[in-house]
């Protein structure tokens, strides 16, 4: 028999102390943290209520309209509208709207946090060196691990679901903001520096506009990751379409799982199409090439 790995330290003890210190945080800071994140919940609830308040045909029209505005193609616009219609047709309108609300809120907050972080990272090699491995870890860590601390802090519900989604979805927008700004041609940055541009003028007048297509690609990826996380977050009380899938597993109802699954695919297509087309329009706006 192979020799067993020796126990170098008492790992059980270490685990207990990690758990205990986190428990201490939960006990002493749980309430405060909940207070801090209250506005976020309000935002989420407001978006959710608004989407559910809108008549269904208005939502269909908005999505088809956004599709047309981004792609200038009637076919795609009608297709996206039809997918939204099918959401209701499947009897999944309410969970669908809740999922959209959660995804949009998470994406919005991820962008608000991620773009400034990406800008900071692009301006300092040291920050980039520290941040990149952290982002790698965030993206490779199994998704379920995120759920644990948030559930402990806030208990099952929408806040932990939203926060776990943000943490999971934020890396692409940080990464691609950093990359986009760093990729802006040295020549153009040098040229504007040579004409006496301040760092601020350079950032807002040159670097961000030229990095915009790349940043948009990051936002698109973040949206998709938020959508995939929203499904998993249903395990801790996010509700929505993910909850339908979860019920399908628990009750072994293939129809419930399949329809909810299809609905999620529709949402992914809708948001991906709109975001991608918007990114392309932005590139055209930059007048690249002939």
């Amino acid at each position, binding site marked *: 028999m192979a020799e067993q790995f020796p126990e170098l330290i008492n790992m059980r003890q270490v685990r207990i102390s990690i758990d205990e210190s986190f428990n201490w945080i939960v006990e002493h800071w749980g309430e405060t943290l909940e207070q801090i994140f209250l506005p976020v919940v309000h935002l989420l609830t407001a978006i959710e209520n608004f989407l559910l308040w809108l008549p269904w045909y208005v939502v269909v029209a908005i999505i088809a309209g956004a599709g047309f505005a981004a792609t200038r193609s009637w076919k795609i616009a009608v297709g996206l509208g039809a997918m939204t219609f099918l959401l209701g047709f499947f009897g999944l309108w309410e969970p669908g709207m809740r999922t959209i609300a959660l995804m949009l809120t998470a994406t919005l907050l991820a962008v608000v946090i991620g773009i400034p972080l990406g800008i900071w990272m692009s301006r300092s090699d040291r920050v980039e060196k520290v941040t990149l491995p952290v982002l790698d870890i965030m993206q490779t860590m199994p998704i379920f691990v995120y759920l644990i601390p948030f559930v402990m802090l806030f208990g099952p519900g929408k806040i932990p679901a939203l926060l776990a989604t943000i943490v999971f979805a934020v890396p692409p927008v940080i990464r691609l903001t950093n990359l986009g700004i760093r990729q802006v041609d040295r020549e153009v940055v040098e040229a504007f520096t*040579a004409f006496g541009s301040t760092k601020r003028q350079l950032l807002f007048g040159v670097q961000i506009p030229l990095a915009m297509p790349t940043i948009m690609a990051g936002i698109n990826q973040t949206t998709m990751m938020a959508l995939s996380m929203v499904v998993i977050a249903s395990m801790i009380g996010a509700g929505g379409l993910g909850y339908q899938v979860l019920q399908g597993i628990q009750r072994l109802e293939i129809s419930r799982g399949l329809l909810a699954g299809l609905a999620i695919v529709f949402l992914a297509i809708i948001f991906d199409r709109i975001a991608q087309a918007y990114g392309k329009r932005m590139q055209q706006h930059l007048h690249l090439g002939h």
Partner: protein
Amino acid sequence: MAEQQTKISIENVYKIFGPEPLSVLDRVKGGASKTEILEETGHTIGIRDVSLKIEPGEIFVVMGLSGSGKSTLIRHINRLIEPTDGRILVDGEDVLKLDAEELRHLRRYKMSMVFQRFALLPHKTVIENVMSGLQIRDATRQGLLPHKTVLENIAKVLRFQGASKSDAYDQAQTQVELVGLKGFENQYPSQLSGGMQQRVGLARALATDADVLLMDEAFSALDPLIRNDMQDQLIQIQKELSRTIVFITHDLDEALRIGDHIAILKDGELRQVGTPEEILIAPADDYVSRFVKDVNRGRVVTVGSIASEYPTVEMPTATYSDAVAKLKASVGNTVYVLDKGKPVGAVTTRMTQNGRDLSGTINSHDKLDPVLTVDSETVIEDMLTLAVNSDVPIAVMDGGALVGGVPRQTVMSALVRSEGGPEATGSAA
């Protein structure tokens, strides 16, 4: 003081690239070689002990091949790259001592820059293609914003100076017309040809009214014909505006064509500074002479610079025997006969050998060998036919006065080699 006349004075500038440049500065100053420093310390010497004086209103060309440090040197002047050691005075003020705010002021009002437009992108990688950064790079190669029109691009740098929007656009419009882009104001850079994009870059640099214009290989990536046009245009604009221009190039023909003075750099060291003719006629070392070997001298060397002195006699007082005496006393074979300071003919050795009647005073030029005249500023390419058709050395005039003569052989040899240069010694027939 001499320093105040000089526009830009570069004094003993060093640039060392690497983690701790100051730690090896003393060794570099002590004369350690480039490879020695690189192998022992991992530092690269970019510029070594370069001093230059650039006078107001001139086009000063810094010439060198890639890796010679020319692009680094020009970036020291507006501190896009910080030198490791030395002083750089602009109008007597050391730019290396400016703080961030003062430096910005200098860049906004005193200096502007025209950048190279790269023809190829050898460094593109798969990831850059995927992330679409490449396309952005394509469009911004000459340092213009792709999503702004010609006019907006120029107006933007004027806004840095605090100009109002309408003033900035008015001034930008003037510059666009000056560089011959009227009608293209509202086009985007990607809609313009390479030469036109370069003109936008030039217009932007001229727009700020800075006295110093730094041009980094501004025309290098253009087609030869367009490049010639741009050079002519620059010379033309310079005649009107008389800025101080520091021009970087790797093309000696270009340097000779536009430069009032040329500095030749190799491996970060200054090899020679001089006027185009000085560089051609008296290369300082082997490196420079190898460089100038293939140049079309005919377009650069002026007659004045190769003229030599010839004896003269004055009509109508001089006699033929005076002329013959002078002829015998000189090394040349020609004596010019002047009428009120102007050469009207020549007495030559050939005339004496032909046994012509050479007595009495010279009272008409009928009997003399005919003499052709040329202005001393003429480049020899433009007087080749004259030279070929004249047996008598051509008289070189400067503002109506005779300054010397050039025999046909001198013209020919000036075309092919430098006098006194390494190749001049052996081969002459």
